[in-house]
C-alpha cells in the first residue's frame, strides 16, 4: 500500500491496479455502450418514421399483401440462435478455452450469414421496391439499416475470430471479445423491434 497524500487527514489507499483492458468495464466497454445508446436512438427514429408515416397516411399505407412469416419467422429464430452461440463462445473465452470460443464464434458467423442470405431472398420476393411508395421506402430502409448493422457485425466477428485463432487473447485479455459480443446482441435486439414493427403490428389492427 502506498499512501498518496501525506498531508491529508483521510489518506487514499491505492493498492495493486490491473494494467490495461482487463477485468470488467474497460474503456472500450464504455465506448461500446455509447455506440449502443446512439444506435438505439437511431433505430428509435427509424421506427418513429414508420409509425409517423403510417399514422398520417391512414388505411392505405400498408401494401395489399400482409407481411409473410415464412421467411422472416425462421430468420428471427436464426438470429436469436446466433446470440446463443455467441454467448457460448464468449463463455469459452472466459474459461480460456480457445476451442469453445472458435466454435461459438464460427457458428455465429454462419448463422449471421444465413440471416443475411434469407433476408436478401425476402427482399427479392417483395412485389414492391424502395421507390414504390412510402411503405416500401420505410421497409427497405429500416431493414436495410438493420442489415448493414448485421454485415458490420459479421465483419467485426470475423476479425475477432481471426484474432482469437492466432492466439491474441487469453482468459484475462479478452476485452475485445466481450465488447464485440455486446454489439452483436444489440443488433439482435434491434431486430426484435424491427420484426415487431413490420411483421406483427399490421396484424394488431
Amino acid at each position: 500500500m502506498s499512501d498518496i497524500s501525506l498531508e491529508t487527514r483521510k489518506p487514499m489507499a491505492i493498492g495493486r491496479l490491473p494494467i490495461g483492458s482487463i477485468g470488467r468495464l474497460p474503456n472500450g466497454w464504455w465506448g461500446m455502450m455509447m455506440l449502443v445508446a446512439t444506435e438505439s436512438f437511431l433505430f428509435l427514429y427509424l421506427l418513429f418514421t414508420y409509425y409517423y408515416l403510417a399514422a398520417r397516411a391512414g388505411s392505405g399505407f400498408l401494401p395489399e399483401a400482409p407481411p409473410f412469416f415464412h421467411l422472416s419467422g425462421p430468420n428471427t429464430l436464426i438470429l436469436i440462435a446466433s446470440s446463443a452461440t455467441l454467448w457460448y463462445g464468449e463463455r469459452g473465452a472466459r474459461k480460456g478455452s480457445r476451442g469453445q470460443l472458435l466454435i461459438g464464434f464460427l457458428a455465429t458467423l454462419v448463422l449471421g450469414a444465413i440471416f443475411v442470405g434469407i433476408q436478401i431472398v425476402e427482399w427479392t420476393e417483395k412485389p414492391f421496391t424502395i421507390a414504390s411508395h412510402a411503405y416500401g421506402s420505410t421497409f427497405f430502409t429500416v431493414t436495410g439499416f438493420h442489415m448493414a448493422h448485421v454485415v458490420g457485425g459479421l465483419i467485426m466477428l470475423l476479425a475477432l475470430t481471426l484474432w482469437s485463432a492466432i492466439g491474441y487473447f487469453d482468459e484475462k485479455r479478452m476485452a475485445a471479445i466481450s465488447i464485440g459480443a455486446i454489439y452483436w446482441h444489440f443488433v439482435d435486439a434491434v431486430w426484435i423491434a424491427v420484426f415487431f414493427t413490420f411483421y406483427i403490428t399490421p396484424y394488431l389492427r
Partner: protein
Amino acid sequence: MAAADYQKRPEAGFVTEALEKKLHDMWETKPGLFGVIATVDHKVIGIRYIVTAFAFLVIGGLQALIMRIQLAQPDQTILTPEQYNQLFSMHGITMIFLYALPILSGFSNYLFPLLLGTRDMAFPRLNAFSYWIYLASGLFMYASFLIGEAPNNGWFNYAPYALKSFNPGLNMDFYALGMVFFGISTTVGAANFVVTVMRNRAPGMSINRLPIIIWGTTTVSVGILLANPAVSLAFFFLWLDRQFGTHFFDTAGGGQPLLWQHLFWIFAHPWVYIIVLPAMGMVSDALPVFCRRPLVAYTLVILGTITTMLLGFGVWVHHMFATGIPFLSMSYFSGASFIITIPSAIATFAWIATIWTGRIVMTTAFLYFAGFISMFVIGGVSGVVTASVPADLQLHDTYFVVAHLHYVLIGINLFGVLGGLYFWFPKMTGRMLSERLGRWNFWLTFLGFNLAFLPMHWTGLLGMPRRIYTYPEATGWSWVNMLTTVGSFVLAFGILLLFVNVWISLRRGAIAGRNPWDAPSLEWATSSPPPAYNFPVMPVVASRHPLWEDRLDESDGHSSIDRGLVLDDGKEMLATSVIDAEPRAILKMPEDDPWPFLVTIALTVGFTALLLHWWWIGVAAGVATLLGCVFWLWPRDDLAQTKGAAHE
C-alpha cells in the same frame, strides 16, 4: 518482467527533472509530417478545433456582412436571389454546425484532461478522428461553392423544396451527405467526452467536485448521442428521396413533408442547448475566479444544466406552431417551452449572486462574462415570448426570431467563448492577451452586436420575414436594416481586434506563468502551456477547488498536486470509478497513429463518390474504411490488449 502479472502498484513520488525528461520523450508528438497527421495529443487537437472553428466563424461572418450590405437598403441588386439564398444557407450551416459546436468541442478537448487531472481523453485516436472528420466534412460542404451550387434551402432545409423536383442541382446533396459525414464527428466526439468523464479523472475527483464546464459538456454530449441520429437519418432520407426515388418527404408516394420537420427539430432544438450549455459552463467556472469566490449554488446550477437538456428534448414542436398541429399538442409544447425558462433562470441568478457577493477583479474576460449575462437574459426572454403560441404565430419566421437566435448564439455562445479565450489563452500559449486591446475588443463587439441585433427585434415586429433577399421601400424596413448593417460592421471590426490581439500576444505577450489568474482548478497546476503529458505526477484531489483549498478550508483533506502517482512505464494514465473517482486500473495509451487520418481520407473519398455517383469508387472507399477500422483496432501489445502484454 513477470509475463503473467497483469497488475502493478503505482508509486507516489515528487516531480523530478529526470521524470519529466522521461515522460517528455514518451508523450511528445514526433516531429515532421507524420507527427502532424498522427498526433493524438488532446491539446494539439483542441487547438486545431479552436483555430478551425474560428476560421469558419470568420467565413460565416463575411457571408453575413455581404448579406447585410444587400439588405442595408430596399430593392438592392448587389446579389442575385440565388446568391443570397446560398449565402444565408451557408451562413447558418457554418455558424450553427461548423462554428458553434466545434469551438466548444475545442475548448472541452483542450481542457477536459487538464481539468480532470489526467493525461489524455479516454480515446485519443478517436479524438483525432473526430477532428479530422470535422475538418473534412466542413471542407466537403464548402466545396459546393467551387461549382456554385452551395446549399440554398437554409440550415433548416425543409422538404419538399429540398427534393430533386424543386432543387435539381448538387446543392442539397452536398448538404445532405455533408451532414451525415459531420454527424460522425459529433457523435464520436460526444462519446469520447462522456467516457472520459466517467472513467478518467484524478483520484478523489468525485462527481460533486467536477468543474461546471465538465458537467455542461458531458450533459450535452449525452444529448448529442441521443439527438444526432435524428438529423443524420433525416438527411440520409433526403438523399435517398433525391437519388433513389424513395417517398419519405414526397407527397406523391405517401411521404410527409412534416416528417422532415419532426426529425429535424427533434434534433435541432436540443442542439440549441447543446451549443450553449458548455459555454454557460465556461462562465460558471471562470466568472467566479474574477469574483474571488466559488460559484453560488454549484449543485443547483448543475441540476439546472441537466434539466435544461432533458426538457430540451420535449419542446421541438414549438418550431412548428404554424403547421396546423392539433390544439392540445400546441398547448402542451407551448407550456413545456415556458417551463424551460426555470432551469436557465437558476444559472442567471447564480451568476448575479456570485458577482454580488464577490470581490471583482475587472478584466476583459470578466467584462465578457458580465456582458454575457445580459445578452443571455435578452435571448432568453425573447425566447419566452415566442413560446406563446398566439404571439409566435405572428413572430415566427420574422426578424424577431433572427434577433432572438443571434442573442442566443452570439450572446451566449460567442461571448462565453471570447471570455473563455481571454481566460484560457495564457494556459494554451503561455502568454497573456493584452488587456488594453481587450477592452477595445470587448466594447466594440458588445456595442456593435447590440447595435446590430437589438433594433432587429423591431424589424421583426414591423413584420419583416426571414430569408428574403430584398424588400420594397414601402414596407418601412429600411431604417432598421441600415442600423443592423452598421452594427454588424462594428461587430466585425471588434472581432478583428481580437485577432490582432492574438497575433501580437503570440509574439510579444507577457509571459503567463502557471496560474496568472490565481484560479482554483487543476489546469492551473501545471505549466503554461502544459507539457505533452499534462502532469508529471498524477494529482490526487480532495476538494472542488484544489488550488484554493488552504484559503477556503472547504474540505477535510488536502489535494496533493506536487506529489502524486508516478506513471512512467510507457504512456500510462489512470482509470477511476464513476462516482468517487477511486483508482480502478492503469491504462495504456496509444502512440501517434495515422489510422484516424487514413480512415478519414477513405470516408472523404467515399462521400465524394456518393455525391458524384461514382458507385464503384464508393464501394471501394467503404471497404477501405472498414479495413482501416480493423487495422486501427488491431489488438496491440503496447496497449495491453493481447495476452502476455503485461508490464511491471
